[in-house]
């Protein structure tokens, strides 16, 4: 492995064997002495990944996509079924905060216990003890039992220890969802410091804002496979699109990182998407215009109920908002032939700027399956609308609504 890499994963597979009937006792094992039958669960398939030293690398994916399994394998908790995981440097082997915390022990005792579990020696914990207490702001509580702490205090203590335990490579799994706003700001500052100090960070999260703010690169895992590795913005977009209003299950076979193609021969083919103001086709709108969007599509065969999703994406790839047809059209079942549906995006919602107007059609089922999509990130031609401020009375980034009054005279 090259010196510049912190982590190299090649052809990693992980299968779990789930016994059909769990045989936990000797009696059952003896009575059913034939080999127990297993179901194989492929948690990870052919993962290839290289993370450079000093990189802040994000991993995103929906629940059950395999990202936690991957993190556990990197951390050395699980063994890979096939493939290789090579780590260059020391690694903080935790994936969760406060491991080994015992409510019956005092704060001080828990600092030592958790510290050594995270790989510090007793002496190192001793040296960093004051810093931990200061950061957690729990000076007065250290001799109280942990069970008397609020959950926020516990998290603060746990983060303060983890922060001191860092090695060359840090694995962080969703630690920011807790704590009050002031403490969260402190955590983010720590992340920035860690990033600046040149350590490698592998960060698993659902927070796309954090991915875009901190990560140098990111990866999206879906259905046990790498869906894409790329710029945080692109990955965040893919993630948001996949999670937009409908949770989209992508047809298999298209999971090539980087470029994705539209499904071939869909039962419903999206023909075009256009925008207009009143009756005039245009991509130029004023902040106080209604935006009318027409979607033309052709139904090739009788289908189950479907839903359409309209979503706006900023030119830099950030997913902004989406609206689907479930609210207004319910279980929509268009007949065979050509159709047009339209959506009115009411005025005064969008700030100044440019937006791509994308659309997708999915089955109504849970989870929905993608039928066809018109999306800039798929390289499709979609309207790019421009919102401009042309009002005489309002000015600024968005259409500010207000009413003036005059109370005659006041004394």
């Amino acid at each position, binding site marked *: 492995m090259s010196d510049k890499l912190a982590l190299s994963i090649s052809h990693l597979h992980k299968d779990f064997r789930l016994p059909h009937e769990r045989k936990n*006792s000797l009696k059952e094992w003896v009575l059913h002495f034939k080999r127990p039958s297993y179901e194989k669960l492929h948690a990870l398939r052919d993962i290839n990944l290289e993370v450079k030293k000093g990189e802040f690398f994000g991993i995103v994916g929906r629940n059950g996509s395999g990202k936690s399994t991957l993190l556990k394998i990197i951390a050395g908790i699980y063994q890979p079924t096939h493939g290789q995981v090579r780590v260059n440097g020391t690694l903080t082997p935790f994936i969760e905060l406060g491991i080994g915390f015992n409510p019956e022990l005092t704060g001080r005792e828990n600092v030592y216990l958790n510290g050594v579990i995270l790989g*510090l020696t007793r*002496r190192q914990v001793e040296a960093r003890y004051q810093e931990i207490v200061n950061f957690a702001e729990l000076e007065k509580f250290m001799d109280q039992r942990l069970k008397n702490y609020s959950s926020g205090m516990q998290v603060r203590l746990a983060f303060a220890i983890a922060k001191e335990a860092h090695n060359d490579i840090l694995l962080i799994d969703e630690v920011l969802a807790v704590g009050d706003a002031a403490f969260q700001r402190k955590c983010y500052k720590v992340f920035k410091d860690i990033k600046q100090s040149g350590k490698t960070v592998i960060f698993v999260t659902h927070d796309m804002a954090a991915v875009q703010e901190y990560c140098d690169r990111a990866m999206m895992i879906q259905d046990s496979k790498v869906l894409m590795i790329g710029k945080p913005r692109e990955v965040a977009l893919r993630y948001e699109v996949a999670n937009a209003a409908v949770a989209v299950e992508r047809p298999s076979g298209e999971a090539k990182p980087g470029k994705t193609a539209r499904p071939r021969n869909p039962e419903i083919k999206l023909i075009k998407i256009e925008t207009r103001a009143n009756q005039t086709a245009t991509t130029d709108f004023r902040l106080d215009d209604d935006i009318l969007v027409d979607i033309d599509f052709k139904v090739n065969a009788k289908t189950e109920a479907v839903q359409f999703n309209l979503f706006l994406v900023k030119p830099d790839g950030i997913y902004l908002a989406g609206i689907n047809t479930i609210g207004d059209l319910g279980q929509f079942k268009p007949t065979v032939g050509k159709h047009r549906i339209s959506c009115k995006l009411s005025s005064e919602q969008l700030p100044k700027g440019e937006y791509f107007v994308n659309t997708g059609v999915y089955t109504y089922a849970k989870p929905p399956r993608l039928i066809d999509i018109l999306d800039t990130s798929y390289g499709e031609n979609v309207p790019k609308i421009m919102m401009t401020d042309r009002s005489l009375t309002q000015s600024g980034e968005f259409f500010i609504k207000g009413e003036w009054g005059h109370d005659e005279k006041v004394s």
Partner: protein
Amino acid sequence: MAKSNNLSLIRELVASDFKLRYQGSILGYLWSLLRPLMLFGVLYVVFTKVIRIGDGVPYYPAYLLLGLVLWTFFTEATLSGMNAITGRGDLIRKVAIPKYIIVISTNVSALVNFSLNMVVVGIFMVAGDVPLRWTLLVVPLLIAELMIFALAVSFLLSALFVKFRDISHIWDVVLQVFFYAVPILYPLTFPPQRIAEFISINPLTQIFQDIRWLAITPQTRTTENVFNSQIGRIIPIAIILLIIVLAWWYFRRSSKRFAEEL
């Protein structure tokens, strides 16, 4: 992880184990001394006043107490060792901690208790006028043998217990049988020769009797006496070696999957 961290880890796991065990009890640590002492009191009365098995044994109080303390160490070490992995699922599922450290730490806890119990045995030996002999110096070697044996059994049981939850019941029964099948209460001169030979295969018998021979009285019948040759030591030590190999192989093999199976 560095070796020094492993030591810190054992130390913290043992320390927190002790803090938790005696939290909220007034006598606290004294309970670990009182339990074997009370058992000793009852057995001493039964075997000197009622059944009189101990009559022929010189320094029987110290002899009996020593046996009980050694036995208490073995049961405590193997029982807590067996539960070590399953009881620490919270750690093993979340952090790549060396699994053997957890098993070792339970045995170290038992060893701390044992050392303090041995102080009481020392007091009884002095009070019972047991003559001091140079052979006492060899006792630590046999205690080391006992520790290694207990640790090997702990490794094997802890790994088996992850897969088969019946192991705890089986081991309870085995310990109950051993309590009588190992000459803790009675001298090895008591059972008939055939049975004495059978009992002497057990490594615990060899260790207990050798320690008593070294520390209490050379009149103790050791497994060497029973077989009238060094066979009496070779067989028990061979059994220990076998268990070490088995435990090492099985624990190493299955510890990789602990995190998934817990």
